[in-house]
């Protein structure tokens, strides 16, 4: 799915959480969104998912304008916050079933995919346990499995690497994400871990005070900043400094 943001602005009272953000994201890419706390990373994902409405500007998915009540477009994307939406008295398996139904992605054959994902994420043994007795990481994995089974065109993940998943879970997620990108899926995730953003992304978007300060490959960002900075951390600091 191609994503285009045209002057996306979001204000909360006097605070400009997003300030005229212009981005074009081609399909089949992993985009890491980095930025300081309160920079607007989560707001960007929430705008893209429709939970938050843009104050100004437009969002286009495959040249179609995204409006929040467009269920057909919303069904093509899935947003996974750091604490996913869950009816916690349900079991992990029931949650997955509910999400599959909600996305109308319960086509024949999905059950095999669910079994293989449960196995891959070490969740098969506890799949029939209620979510409210599972750990945070296990809950996140349950929500992630639902996303992977649905396989939407656009994945929006808020801090997936700081969601309580164990290293095996994180590796499995990366593997699945890379495979999805090869199928043409677009993945946008936020992170505070710059090494991860550098290694696990096609593009890095640096957001600072609501503005998209840079959007390029990690290597290109470093090349552009040659002479001034050598690592993504230094570029990040430099961009912050420019903004004051």
């Amino acid at each position, binding site marked *: 799915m191609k994503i285009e943001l045209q002057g996306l602005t979001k204000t909360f009272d006097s605070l400009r959480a997003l300030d005229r953000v212009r981005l074009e994201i081609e399909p089949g890419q992993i985009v890491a969104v980095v930025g300081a706390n309160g920079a607007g990373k989560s707001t960007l994902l929430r705008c893209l998912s429709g939970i938050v409405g843009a104050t100004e500007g437009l969002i286009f998915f495959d040249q179609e304008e995204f409006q929040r009540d467009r269920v057909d477009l919303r069904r093509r994307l899935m947003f996974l916050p750091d604490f996913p939406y869950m009816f916690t008295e349900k079991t992990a398996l029931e949650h997955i079933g509910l999400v599959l139904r909600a996305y109308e992605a319960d086509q024949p054959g999905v059950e095999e995919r669910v079994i293989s994902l449960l196995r891959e994420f070490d969740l098969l043994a506890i799949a029939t346990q209620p979510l409210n007795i599972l*750990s945070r990481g296990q809950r996140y994995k349950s929500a992630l499995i639902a996303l992977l089974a649905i396989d939407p065109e656009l994945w929006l993940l808020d801090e997936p690497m700081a969601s309580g998943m164990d290293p095996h879970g994180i590796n499995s997620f990366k593997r699945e994400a890379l495979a999805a990108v090869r199928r043409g899926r677009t993945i946008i995730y936020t992170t505070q871990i710059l090494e991860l953003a550098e290694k696990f992304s096609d593009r890095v978007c640096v957001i600072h005070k609501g503005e998209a300060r840079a959007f390029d490959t990690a290597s290109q960002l470093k090349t552009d900043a040659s002479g001034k900075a050598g690592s993504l951390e230094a570029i990040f600091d430099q961009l912050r400094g420019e903004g004051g």
Partner: protein
Amino acid sequence: MKRRGRWLEKELRRRVRREIAASPDLKREYKRVRRSRSRAISSRAMWMFWVLLVLPLMVWAILVGRGAPSRNGLEGFHACFALWLTGWAFWRVQMFYQCYYWDGDLWIYGHLPVLDREVFRLQWRKFLRQPSIMLVVVPVALCVTTTLAGGGWRALLPALAFAALIHAACVCLTLFIATRLPQVPHVKIAFGFCSVAAGLFIWLVKSGEVAAEYFRWAYWLPPFGWINYAFLEGYLGGYHLAWLLLLPVAAMVVGGWRWRATLEATYAVPGEMFSIAPTWSPQVTGGDAGQLAMATDDARAGVPEGSQMTELENSIRRRDFLASMDWKTERWFEWVMARWLGSREKLVASLLCGGPPTWTKEFVNAIYASAVTMIILWFLAGSVRSLTMWGCIFVAYVLLPALGGYWRGFGTALIGSQFSPMYAGFPVSHGEIFPVVFKVNLLRSLAAAPVLVLFGMAIAVRAGETIQFGIIMALKTVGLVIALQPTIIATRLSGCASGYQRPARLWQAGLVPLLLVGLGAGFTLYASQSLTWALVSLAIVAIIGVVVLISCFKWYERGWFDQLSNKPDELSGPG
């Protein structure tokens, strides 16, 4: 331990301001991120606004509707008021419970070197500090009713004091039955309140005229005011109502026993370790155990092994996990709705219910609750002639849980540092939600109509009115409930998001005139004997609802409010 070091806070604030003032960059950033606080209307303020507006109008409507100020009209008002106060007393007990076992502060104290007795003390203070809407409602109700009924203001203060003392004693005694916590001498405190109340009582009795004024209304003020009424009736004209005493006693015993059982189940750590109560999790939605609940060893309990695992895989292959959303249509309400709603609507309904709906069960429970209410009101109707209308409204309120039913999907979940309605996590639109909720509530209202009509007939006869009058009152109430649905749904949609906050000025500007027109229409509906006026009134209420609903949709489409709010809706409430 002190929760706040005011001197330190002041000093830190001063230093921070000085730093900001000295740096242009920091000053710029401070201005950028500063948010105004005054624009948001808190749910508590809205609640208070409604109460302040509705209470005098209720009294006015009774008086005007019956032709002249009458003792009967005010008695009816006080009867409903006393029932409401009863609910309030139980709600305060629930608040106490929350302070000690479910409060978010306990989580913080659990990570601080704070003694448990300190935690108890701090939570006790917090409980006492919780603002009480009663401080507004009781005086307003008393002022209006005593003035309209010709009672002097001198009756007001002793009545208020008496009501407050009896309320406090009731809460203490209920707490004693429910918790028996050793830290609070509930019985001694209750005894103290009762002693003062008794002193006041003796003084009033001895003071002649004031006492006479006072006794005209004061017996309605304690939570179980209708028991006092029954006593008075029994004392004055017979003992047939005295058996009503059994109801609150039974309610307290059953309630106390249930709370005690819940306490034992949830408060597993023996002794006084409040700060590390192991089952704590933020009470985000009513039935939701919270997004942050700690992992326990239970997660490992009941884990299937070997052959069980194979069975589980086979179950998944049979797609049993997808069937968990299927409706159980052997019950009548679900059966009817399954035939009325389309497949997509059924899916939306399941998402809003958090699984297969259990509407029949909810409806049957509501019937039980309304039966108790009807019995109480039926007995009261013997001497309260105009109770029919208020009785119908009250029963409708009980019968159709809060006039709109219970929907899990409108509850909130913690997303980052804010709260978002559960339905926002799924690809459903407001345009899909409205027809589903409307259809379900329409059927709920129609199903409740025969019960209401029967009640209206019975209570009308009991109150000396005609059967026709009772039927008309009941049907008007059903009509009003249906006409109000667009407003109720719009309020739900915007209430669990930031609908009250972002377009606050618009709400404020638009809501009050609409509300006044709506209330006028509601009053005309009940006061007028003409069918035409009744229909016109209903149409006005419905049109206002549609206007509110369309505005809500438009504001949402334009991004004027988000599916995010700063507070979980379930935590706010009266009291």
